[in-house]
């Protein structure tokens, strides 16, 4: 944290059956929102002075029980300060 720049890499797995939680309140990024979704999401974060400089996330999700619906999402988030 005392460095000029630091980074962190993540890998996650999310599995959410259709009636586990109220779909309206779920994160809109994974499977573009809702329940009945499972998938992996590697992500990477680059920080400069503890401020997020860049975040990259890939999310590969599929439906669990419902009709096949695969949604893969790339997210690139770049922050700048002036």
């Amino acid at each position, binding site marked *: 944290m005392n460095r000029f720049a630091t980074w962190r890499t993540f890998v996650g797995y999310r599995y959410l059956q259709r009636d586990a939680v109220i779909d309206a309140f*779920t994160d809109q990024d994974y499977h573009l929102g*809702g329940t009945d979704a499972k998938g992996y999401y590697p992500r990477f974060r680059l920080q400069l002075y503890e401020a997020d400089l860049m975040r990259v996330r890939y999310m590969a999700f599929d439906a669990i029980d419902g009709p096949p619906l695969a949604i893969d999402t790339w997210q690139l988030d770049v922050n700048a300060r002036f």
Partner: protein
Amino acid sequence: MGQTLPKPALRPFLPADAPVLAAIFAAAIEELTAEDYSEAQREAWASAADDEEKFGKRLAGELTLIATLQNSPVGFASLKGADHIDMLYVHPGATGQGVASMLCDALEKLAGGRGAKSLTVDASDNAQEFFVKRGYVARQRNTVTVNGEWLANTTMQKSLASDASKGGDTMSRERLYLFDTTLRDGAQTNGVDFTLHDKRLIAEMLDDLGIDYVEGGYPGANPTDTEFFSQKPKLDHAIFTAFGMTRRPGRSASNDPGLAGLLEAKADAICFVAKSSAYQVRVALETTNEENLASIRDSVKAAKAAGREVMLDCEHFFDGYKENSGFALACAKAAYESGARWVVLCDTNGGTLQFAAAYYDFNHIVGKQNTYEPTQTGGQPLDFTAPPYLQKGNTVFDIRNTSDQTQNLFALASEYKELEALVEADYKVSPKYRLGFYADFVKNLGYNTTDVSARYGAYVAPRVKGYQSELSFGPI
């Protein structure tokens, strides 16, 4: 009830006190200085109080304080001008009870209050040890002639710089100061994301609660914190504090953008974080112990020069002390001697493990089937039981009685009583790297297969579990 020792108290000098103080003066010299001065010397010295009127004038002409035990004077001390202790005497019957220390404490504060940068005293040989313990340093040896007797004493001096910086604050050991880090540490909790407005409200609430220091965050770390520090929140008494790092190794304080951002922040105090473990300095900062100490000194001085109250968090202090106590203490001392008001010894450790559980019970969430035909007047009175917003996934059913699919209105078929548990762990796998683990489990206890299937019109198997887990890796 056990007997407790009476505590000394202080009060100012009154002219009527002169005879009692003269007696204390004579008794103290007679009984406490015999090891260092001859009888003739002591007599000559004590003769200064023979003329009580003259002695009283001397006391009245200076700032004289009297220490009492159960309302009886047992000692006194006087401050000449702003920066010289003229007299400090305690009756031989009252020594060893902290009377002299109390008097000396008070004079040091008063001298600070009068703007003195240092305090001097011409200490007799028997008192020298007392003053040395209090941080006074011998400056010169003097001889004085009193009534033909030759007496020696030592001029001693103590720098009040660090004490004076406390701004004459009435510090006492009984006072506990509360420092709140909700707006920084709290903001690092998973799922917490304070807006600027949230931060302002929370700061005001902490102020109302009586918190002494409200740490607002880390200016420069993110846009919210930077903006939060662009304007001081309206706090009645809490000291608004900015958090940040000391200057980076190899840079001057004036040439470090991180430190500059911290100094620009509209805050009353700055809390620096610095490593106080030689191992961490070498491995994580990749610099030398000397450079780390210089970084602490420069940063504290810069903040002090900018008019801020300064505190230093000594990270890894306890691990560091075990490994190299001299260096760990030097870090703390460097901050204190450079003007920091507080030095915090942090027990930074290698990892964290947290558990949390939550239960969410949603009422009136299940849709209700309308009983009217859509063609009837009055229409569909239970349409409101359909949520205005759905994403996708939950089992829903049509609550309108119509075969016209374009008229369908979907509502939730199940109750939701969500039980959630999460565990979060963070481990230092090497001096440079950290491994994090997070897992979250949820189960909907409100799901009733019979009820849901009845609403849906066909069997719906329970699919009510969820979990998420994440592994992270990166430098500390």
